[in-house]
């Protein structure tokens, strides 16, 4: 069973999709509003596939496994009542400590430069990650990876182009993107931290060994930053982590409060 591993990927997709969707209607250029919404829809689509797969695995688990999967009272109640979980239960009924997403993704949009820098770091990671995950022996994860890779390839092109455009644009844009690149740097170590879920998934042949993709990520980031006339933050800087263990920044609580409000206020209804 790859429930923990699936959930982390689902949570990543859901949280970044949420953040990007906040731009819809507020972009700096109409064409970019459309482009960013497209990307948000790609992430949301992946989140749905992964949440469905997570629900399927949970429903097939033993009572003991179910008990240890989540801290969510609402999910425990559904389980006790003999209900099967759906993608929406997975997304809307877990609290922050059950979320396993990367700290990078819950960071606020702030401005176009932060949004681009966050996307750039994540899209680069995703590109290499899904390139490897498509060889997973978990056929569902492999299929999701295969489909995602096409989308992520486009995302990476989009965010890389914007890093270059802003870096090699005006003085103001250069300073803004450099600042965003610097400030978000502290969240770029966590994607490569191997935790229990990673180790189990790698040992069974379902997951990706993150050590394999870190050098690829670093090389690609360095190449684009150089083209953008930007400075790469120093190697060996202190890196934040905790998201993969359910310890988040203060931002996630507000995302979930907003995202889950309907399901929490009007529980158990069809929408």
């Amino acid at each position: 069973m790859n429930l923990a591993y699936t959930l982390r990927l689902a949570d990543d997709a859901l949280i970044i999709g949420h953040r990007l969707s906040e731009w819809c209607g507020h972009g700096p250029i109409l064409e970019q509003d459309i482009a960013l919404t497209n990307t948000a829809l790609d992430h949301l689509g992946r989140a749905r596939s992964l949440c469905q797969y997570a629900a399927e695995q949970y429903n097939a688990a033993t009572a003991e496994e179910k008990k240890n999967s989540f801290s969510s009272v609402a999910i425990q109640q559904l389980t006790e009542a003999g209900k099967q979980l759906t993608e929406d239960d997975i997304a809307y009924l877990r609290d922050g400590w059950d979320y396993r997403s990367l700290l990078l993704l819950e960071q606020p949009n702030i401005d176009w430069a932060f949004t681009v820098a966050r996307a750039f770091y994540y899209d680069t990671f995703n590109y290499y990650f899904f390139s490897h995950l498509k060889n997973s022996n978990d056929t569902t994860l492999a299929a999701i990876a295969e489909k995602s890779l096409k989308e992520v390839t486009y995302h990476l092109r989009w965010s890389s182009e914007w890093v270059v455009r802003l870096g090699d644009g005006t003085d103001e844009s250069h300073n803004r993107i450099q600042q965003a690149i610097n400030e978000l740097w502290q969240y770029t170590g966590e994607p490569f931290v191997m935790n229990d879920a990673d180790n189990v998934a790698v040992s069974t042949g379902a997951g990706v060994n993150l050590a394999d993709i870190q050098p690829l990520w670093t090389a690609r980031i360095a190449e684009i930053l150089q083209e953008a006339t930007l400075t790469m933050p120093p190697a060996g800087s202190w890196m934040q982590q905790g998201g993969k263990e359910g310890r988040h920044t203060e931002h996630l609580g507000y995302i979930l409060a907003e995202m889950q409000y309907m399901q929490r206020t009007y529980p158990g209804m069809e929408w």
Partner: protein
Amino acid sequence: MSVHSFQEHFDNLIDRDVTIEPKDWMPDDYRKTLIRQISQHAHSEIIGMLPEGNWITRAPSLRRKAVLLAKVQDEAGHGLYLYSAAETLGISRDEMYNQLHTGKAKYSSIFNYPTLTWADMGAIGWLVDGAAIMNQVPLCRTSYGPYARAMVRVCKEESFHQRQGFEIMLTLSKGTDIQRKLAQDAFNRWWWPSLMMFGPPDAESPNTEQSVRWRIKRFTNDELRQKFVDVTVEQARVLGLEMPDKDIKWNEERGHYDFGTINWSEFYNVVKGNGPCNKQRIEARRKAWDEGKWVRDAAMAHAAKRKARQSEVKAA
């Protein structure tokens, strides 16, 4: 050709139902009317993203969230086609934005009402998109070619949105008591503003006659409004919702539903800027535009640098 014969040629095209194209001669008033109408329509799409955008992060299921996000994105796309159609008449997108941000240009007043509950996503799709389709389907055959062609695409997507909205309402009406209450509450709030979307009564609509003559408009405001009422009464019955107008009654003689008096003073006040969200809507657009300036400047500066580097390479 003299101006007189240009005019004759133009009138002849109109009479024969042939489209007018950007390079054709056209009377100044025709051009002005079209710029006004198409840019208003484009602005309505862009402003219209805001009330629905308000619920993207709070949609009650992942499927609804995806559908809503795609819908709001479609509206951005409609804005894009329409701004492009208006640009063929000799006005830039920046100038149109400027007219919107300074309050010189209008947009559909309906978007000055707030979206207070999830059911508003259903009511807007069902009623507002429904009313918009009635206004817009005839425009697929409007006399100005680029506008007519843009409208063909817009209408296809709008009818999809309308069905999605109705489906949200249907799900609510088949749900729990509180969900039916949400649906009825949204219906009550959006019904009258939807009727106002067709514009003032014909007697008070000074541009209608000329626009009908030019085939910029195909039906009058009152004709379209009546058609909308007739269709909606039947749909509300399917949903099991109560009409928010006690005067709705089938009129055998007219073959239409009679309906109550529209509060035109509210309409004119909302148009004038006194609606519940006029200030917020414009402010949100202005903010996006102002805060995006450095991004647009950067994109332009970068494009110029690239071009300069390419010509250096060529020259070398």
